[in-house]
């Protein structure tokens, strides 16, 4: 099973410029998470902080009990062996051909024979669609190919945690989907924890189990995909739809005056961009048939069901909709038709005591209190959570 990553109160600034503050989230082991956010909000900086390339000023990032922010250099090198990282620009070694690039981690960290290395590397290059290009230098291939080669190198040690910075940039839509499929297949095979930074809405809607979003120097939300995809938060809606109409501006966030001026402009008929309203939670992509089912997916369903009552009503609805009949029976929730016809706020476990007022799903609007969504329960879930024990933490 992949490692769990617990980030607590992380704050990073460059000089006087704060990039983000108080980021708290947990990447659940073996699940695929995505991080969205407008350009320049520090997503790449976040990834680099997670692997200790940048030192945040405050907070913790704990992996297997080791805090990346404060551990010693030798511990850092040890922990890094758990990671596979795809950098935004691929970061291939320019003086080595693709084969040697992908073989590099194997040669450094394993005692494999050259034949074994060769088999391993060619397999990864095949997986990323680069068979036949292994003798080329990074300077001689296209940006998309560099990206895929970087991915092959990140995967070659079968890491427990895989961080991917914008897999879609420089790739055409079809290859992006193939790469997404590849992520899910790898996840099914080695049960690694994924964090994917992306601007690609299709990928964000169909691939991850959990989605987070950085905006205005903060983690706006982080939680099960249904929460963000059904959110009414203006930032989230604007981002998903790619419109100009909303709080995200070209450079920083907009001030009130710009916002008002733009609103007038859009009302007067100026096209705010975007094609069609993007709503709802599409079906999640699955591993290629023939591969084992994703263990992370199963753990996630258990986890989400225990915290279901804390989620906003729309997200609850979406989650229940996404379950199979069997699962609904297993978790003791009602079928969507009944829920829809019955109460607007489904109560999955009627016998469970109502939480404090703040927990009332109906009370939440868009922005969720950080402690409810951003923190995912630390306890391991038994496949069948005991009834009436209360969900979440």
């Amino acid at each position, binding site marked *: 099973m992949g490692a769990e990553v617990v980030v607590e109160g992380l704050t990073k600034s460059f000089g006087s410029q704060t990039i983000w503050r108080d980021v708290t989230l947990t990447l659940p082991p073996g699940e695929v998470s995505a991080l969205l956010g407008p350009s320049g909000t520090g997503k790449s900086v976040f990834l*680099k902080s997670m*692997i200790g*390339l940048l030192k945040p*000023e*405050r907070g*913790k990032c704990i992996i297997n009990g080791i805090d990346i*922010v*404060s551990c010693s250099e030798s511990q850092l*090198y*040890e922990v*890094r*062996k758990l*990671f596979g*990282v795809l*950098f*935004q*620009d691929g*970061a*291939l*070694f*320019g003086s080595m051909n693709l084969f040697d690039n992908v073989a*590099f*981690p194997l040669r*450094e*960290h394993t005692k494999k024979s050259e034949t074994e290395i060769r088999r391993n590397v060619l397999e990864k290059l095949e997986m990323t669609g680069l068979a036949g290009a292994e003798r080329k230098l990074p300077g001689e291939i296209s940006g998309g190919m560099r990206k895929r080669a*970087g991915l092959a*190198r990140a995967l070659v040690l079968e890491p427990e945690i895989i961080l991917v910075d914008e897999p879609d940039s420089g790739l055409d839509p079809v290859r992006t989907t193939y790469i997404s499929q590849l992520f899910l297949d790898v996840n099914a095979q080695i049960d690694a924890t994924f964090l994917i930074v992306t601007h690609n809405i299709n990928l964000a809607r169909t691939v991850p189990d959990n989605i987070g979003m950085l905006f205005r120097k903060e983690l706006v939300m982080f939680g099960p995909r249904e929460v963000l995809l059904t959110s009414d938060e203006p930032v989230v809606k604007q981002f998903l739809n790619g419109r100009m109409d909303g709080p995200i501006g070209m450079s920083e966030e907009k001030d009130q005056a710009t916002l008002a001026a733009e609103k007038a402009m859009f009302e007067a008929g100026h096209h705010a961009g975007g094609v069609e309203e993007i709503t709802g939670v599409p079906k999640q992509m699955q591993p290629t048939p023939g591969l084992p089912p994703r263990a992370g997916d199963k753990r996630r369903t258990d986890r989400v069901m225990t915290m279901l009552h804390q989620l906003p009503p729309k997200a609850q609805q979406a989650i229940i909709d996404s379950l199979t009949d069997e699962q609904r029976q297993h978790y003791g929730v009602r079928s969507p038709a009944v829920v829809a016809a019955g109460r607007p706020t489904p109560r999955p476990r009627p016998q469970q005591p109502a939480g404090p007022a703040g927990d009332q799903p109906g009370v939440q609007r868009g922005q969720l209190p950080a402690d409810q969504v951003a923190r995912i329960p630390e306890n391991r879930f038994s496949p069948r959570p005991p009834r009436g024990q209360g969900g979440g933490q």
Partner: protein
Amino acid sequence: MTSRSAVSFPGRGALESTGKLFALGADVVRLTFKRPFQTREFIQQGWFIAGVSILPAMLVSIPFGAVVSLQLGQVVNQLGAASFTGAVSVLAIIQQASPIVCALIVAGAAGAAICADIGARTIREEIDAMEVLGVSAVHRLVVPRVLACTLVALLLNGVVSVVGVLGGYFFNIILQGGTPGAYLASFSALAQLPDLWISEIKAALFGFLAGVVACYRGLNPPPGPKGVGDAVNQSVVITFLLLFFVNFILTAVYLTVVPPKTG
């Protein structure tokens, strides 16, 4: 958790850089003994540095030796110690001119290339990628380069000394009408073995410095591709400044510690 102080005062940046430069130097020494040693990289770099340095070093050392010996020959003549010309010019060449020439060439030709290479890798995030793959860039890239600079400077020093002394000898005999016998006799009367040692020690130290400075600037370039260019420029300038300063100290120490040979 460490909360770093953000006090700023004039010269803070310079102090910080100096500290980091020393830290890198110390890391290089420490990681030199870490297995596995990057032999291949070391040989490749050594070959490369020797390739770009030998010819310019020899070309510089002939006129340099000549100038030193002409100038000194003149002065020594005026003082009426013409018979000591040989000793004076050979000592000057071996102890001062040769190590400095080596270091200037190593820093200017090889250091600049090393700094540009590492700088380009840094901005392309190759160094980050290497660190993330759990491989120390200092161990893997910096150590072999610095050691190659050191070794080549050391060997080059021998070549430059010989060529410089030959040049000085030639000009003294041909142009100033010195006698070969007096030249050689005075030389063996005043020079001693430690003079050669200090020359080699200096050359090795200067080569090490040139390598560390080049790698340090390469690993910490100002942002952007232009930053790499600036870094190369600065690395050469910084090395030169350091060189003359360190040379001054070494010379002062040497002259105090090693008693002059009285012929």
